[in-house]
């Protein structure tokens, strides 16, 4: 379809999604501060609790972002209202993707930034930044997969499966990193070195994430009508 996008309405729909997510967003950021405070104490037990809390929060932000803007909208039949507005399926898809990325990426990037600041400004080894990047990267991939599935599949069961499944994979992923000696040695040092396997993983994460978003955009945007 070569039709021009209806940007003013897309922008309003993005703002709408942002407003709907606002209250949850504040709660997530508050939790983020607590988690980072634990991390900042630089004690082994506090580091353990803090990192666990941070991962839980990241997963929660990802799940809530997808669920508020896509699953709840479908379930509570507000979708029909949005579709009655002057938007094409492509406009709607762009607005959904962009609005969702906005609501997710804002808290995600804020937390990533503060995590990095805490790692660098406290006695924690600076090399931990590599681990943090990999963990954040995994959550980002899991989020992109959940988002793409939510835009594609109406079934709530499959959506939950995609969300939980992709997020839970963080466990084996961390174990895998634990097996990588080249990465492990960096984590304990104070110099920030990016070992080749870590860079490869980050690259793969970026590719998978982008592929998911591109697929969601292509598959939903090419439809001539909603039904």
């Amino acid at each position, binding site marked *: 379809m070569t*039709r021009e996008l*209806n940007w*003013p*309405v897309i922008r*309003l729909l993005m703002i*709408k999604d942002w*407003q*709907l997510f606002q*209250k949850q967003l504040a709660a997530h950021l508050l939790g983020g501060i607590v988690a980072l405070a634990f991390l900042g104490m630089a004690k082994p037990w506090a580091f353990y609790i803090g990192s666990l809390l941070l991962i839980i929060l990241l997963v929660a932000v990802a799940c809530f972002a997808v669920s508020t803007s896509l699953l709840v909208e479908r379930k*509570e*039949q*507000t979708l*029909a*209202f949005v*579709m*009655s*507005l*002057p*938007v*094409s399926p492509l*406009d709607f898809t762009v607005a959904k993707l962009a609005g969702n990325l906005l609501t997710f990426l804002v808290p995600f990037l804020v937390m990533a930034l503060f995590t990095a600041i805490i790692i660098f400004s406290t006695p924690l080894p600076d090399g931990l930044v590599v681990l943090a990047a990999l963990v954040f990267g995994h959550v980002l991939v899991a989020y992109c997969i959940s988002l793409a599935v939510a835009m594609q599949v109406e079934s709530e069961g499959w959506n939950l499966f995609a969300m939980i499944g992709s997020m839970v994979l963080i466990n084996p992923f961390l174990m895998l990193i634990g097996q990588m000696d080249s990465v492990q040695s960096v984590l304990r040092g104070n110099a920030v070195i990016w070992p080749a396997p870590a860079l490869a993983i980050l690259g793969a994460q970026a590719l998978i994430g982008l592929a998911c978003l591109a697929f969601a955009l292509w598959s939903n945007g090419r439809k*001539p*009508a*909603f*039904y």
Partner: protein
Amino acid sequence: MTAAFVLQGVSKHYPQFSLSDFSLTLPEGQIMGLVGVNGAGKSTLLRLLTGLAAPSSGDIEVLGHRLPEAQVAAKRKIGFAAEDMRLYRGQTLAWHIELVRRIYPEWDSAYAASLLRRFDLRADQSVGGFSHGQRVKALLLLCLARRPQLLLLDEPTTGLDPVARAEVLESLAEVLRDEHRSVLFSSHNTHDVEQLSDSISFMHQGRLLASADKERFLDEWRRVLCVGDVPDALDAWPELVQRRAAGSQIELKFRRWQDDLPERLAQVGLSVQRIDPMTLEDIFVTTVRAGGRQ
């Protein structure tokens, strides 16, 4: 004559349901009532008319725009409210009004304010606490205040108490003032649509059974009570739609009534006792039972 919409040979197939070979035109400035039982395909038809659904075959033109290709341009001029449409529970009506106002440049704030008062709605109340009637009125307000060229309303009066129903119908009647604005509204009963509608369409199981001026419907149908022996040839009369024994009397329902019919009945040996016009509801039920036999 310009048309608010033209459907030509439109079909839409779903796994469980099909709308088939649907041709219907609504002239500009008219109100059409669409009557059909639940599951007749009214919602599917309205989805096709808003461009939300693409037809499997056939042509759809709404306000001069081909659908679903030009759905954005068409939807700018369409006000669509469906029974299964919900607003955002956590947000206030004012928030919804603001969203819609910013999308439609034609939004009439003064009209919106007067509708708020008439519908007795509170803008600062969150939509989650609305009753069914309030929700319907809120949706209608969001549609009406943007002064759309074509209003498409799916079951706007279903489940409303008599007061709310009157309020909704009154606000629709106001649309009549403007000869360029058209309305299609559906219902599963004839009472809700017959007062306001210029034309009535009956649909059943995905097909259009009949569509005509309301007055023509009433003029063309008659219920005749007579006594005598029914000749076999009677069933072949094209005007006869239904024949039923009612005690010693015979009840006949005719479509395309002609003034010479009583005479013809007398000729075949039936003595006519009464001739009555039929209510729209009776006409609808008879049409559905006859399966739309022309």
